[in-house]
């Protein structure tokens, strides 16, 4: 199985875009080697601003740059790029509809050894709550490329969540993405997995494991969490009658909550939210942590079977 880094892909795509479009600038907060904005900084130093460990200042400076016609990409880790500067994103970026792109890496628990302080599991909750903000979580490197190209083209605020770990490749290199549409990767009959980010691959794997239990699971990748593609989700819900959402994020207010509120007016379908329960992360290796939090394919499959049996009994 081929794995590719979303961060590398971000850095390369951003550099390519910046080569073509002089309006593109990048900002970082002393993590450019990790977020890969360093690729742009080495080749086009005059359009790179390392703001130091000052995330609030970074968001404000990005806003100012956008006001003079530039297209700023501001990057750091998910935890610092949302929580530390939430008010700046709210007041300076979102109320003003400033053309600022916030692309964070190191979302979720697969950050690993750094532990709870660095494992952001509330960023999707924070960002989807903001009016005018749109939220993308790509499922592999090729989708990441498409997302970065898309947000560069579209006017207004965007939040893109990437991860530290490499992701298994799901899509063809040259796939033409319709990013606003939830993507049905596998059709199924009696259960729907709705996932985002790394969990999309894990759900595809879990779906295979369900076959033996007589469950034909549908798998949907929701890359655009806001705006969310209600239509695809509702019709799948009506078709299978059972939904399991899976995310590397708190279950309190993430993908699961968005899906639930998207369908609840039109479909009465039991929904199980799999994710980080109402708690912070902890240190460990990424793979160990996925198992520990029940986000590996086997754990997902097991929970899905239990849920299926309980509801369809």
């Amino acid at each position, binding site marked *: 199985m081929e794995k590719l880094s979303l961060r590398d892909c971000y850095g390369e795509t951003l550099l390519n875009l910046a080569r073509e479009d002089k309006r593109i600038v990048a900002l970082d907060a002393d993590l450019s080697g990790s977020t890969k904005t360093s690729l742009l900084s080495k080749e086009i130093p005059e359009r790179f601003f390392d*703001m130091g460990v*000052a995330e609030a200042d970074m968001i404000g*400076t990005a806003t100012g740059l956008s006001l003079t016609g530039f297209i700023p990409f501001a990057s750091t880790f998910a935890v610092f790029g949302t929580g530390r500067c939430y008010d700046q994103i709210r007041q300076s970026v979102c109320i003003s509809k400033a053309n600022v792109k916030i692309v964070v890496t190191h979302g979720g628990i697969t950050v690993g050894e750094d532990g709870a302080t660095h494992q952001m599991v509330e960023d999707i909750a924070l960002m989807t709550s903001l009016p005018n903000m749109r939220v993308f979580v790509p499922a592999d490197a090729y989708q990441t490329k498409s997302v970065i190209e898309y947000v560069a083209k579209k006017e207004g605020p965007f939040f893109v969540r990437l991860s530290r770990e490499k992701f298994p490749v799901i899509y063809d290199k040259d796939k033409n993405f319709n990013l606003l549409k939830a993507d049905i990767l596998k059709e199924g009959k009696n259960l729907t997995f709705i996932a985002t980010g790394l969990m999309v691959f894990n759900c595809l794997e879990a779906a295979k494991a369900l076959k033996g239990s007589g469950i034909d699971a549908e798998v949907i990748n929701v890359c655009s969490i806001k705006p969310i593609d209600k239509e695809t989700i509702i019709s799948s819900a009506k078709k299978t009658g059972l939904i399991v959402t899976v995310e590397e994020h708190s279950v309190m207010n993430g993908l699961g909550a968005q899906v639930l509120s998207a369908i609840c007016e039109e479909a009465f379908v039991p929904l199980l939210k799999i994710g980080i329960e109402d708690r912070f992360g902890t240190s460990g290796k990424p793979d160990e942590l996925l198992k520990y939090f029940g986000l590996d394919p086997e754990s997902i499959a097991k929970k899905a079977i239990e849920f299926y049996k309980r509801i369809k009994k």
Partner: protein
Amino acid sequence: MEEETKRLKILAYKMRKEIIQMTNKAKSGHPGGSLSCIDILTCLYFNVLRHNPENPEWEERDFFILSKGHASPAFYSVLSYSGYFEKDELKSFRQLNSRLQGHPEKGTLKGVEITTGSLGQGLSIANGIALGLKLKKSTARVYCLLGDGELQEGQLWEAIQSAGHRKIDNLCVILDRNRLQIDGFVEDLKKEEPLEDKLKSFLFNVLRIDGHNFNSILDAFNIASKTRSKPTFIIADTIKGKGVSFMENNVKFHGVPPDDEETETALREIDEELRKMERE
């Protein structure tokens, strides 16, 4: 009195009346910190800034960022007197469906470059604009007004560090040093002096002026525009509530408007001052 400073002073006092009336009518808003900065804003909008109210998004315009967004009554007054919108609209301040929101909002009202009101955020934005202008090889300048209580916000010191480090010399920061915030004297809450030393050590060109002396204000802006490889920080010593005797240095009028009786007295005082000026 010199012609230009006389013109500016008369304008500033006329707008003081607007500030009183707007906040009184809205039964809310921030008159104290508006009265302390109106002389500075008048100098900016009627003498210093290159701007075009008929074409607010004119490519070559200078930028003004009101970081202390609660001084919106002063800001809206200079915008309307400059011609961005009809003076009559000032009456709609803080009403439902008004473009004159409690704190200035970008997109709602022409001439407002960015939304402010959450203190501490304006200078980072001003820095970004100034850096963008430099990248575009524009000669336009950026002005940013801060409050002295606001200066307690950590983000401002991040931005001050950025501006000094990056030698953002197309930037001029003005501090409305009226010594008061909501809970009392700034120096009692958190010692801010020696401000000049602090800001110099952050690599700023620092000027200290009487923020109600029009000649000093204009001179300072002139020096700022000629300063190279350093951003300028003008510490403007001001009086909160300036121009209305019972509001001056009175912390109560930070976020409380004058009642009807106080409004009448205030307007009378300002009119008297205006008559005196016109006689001079």
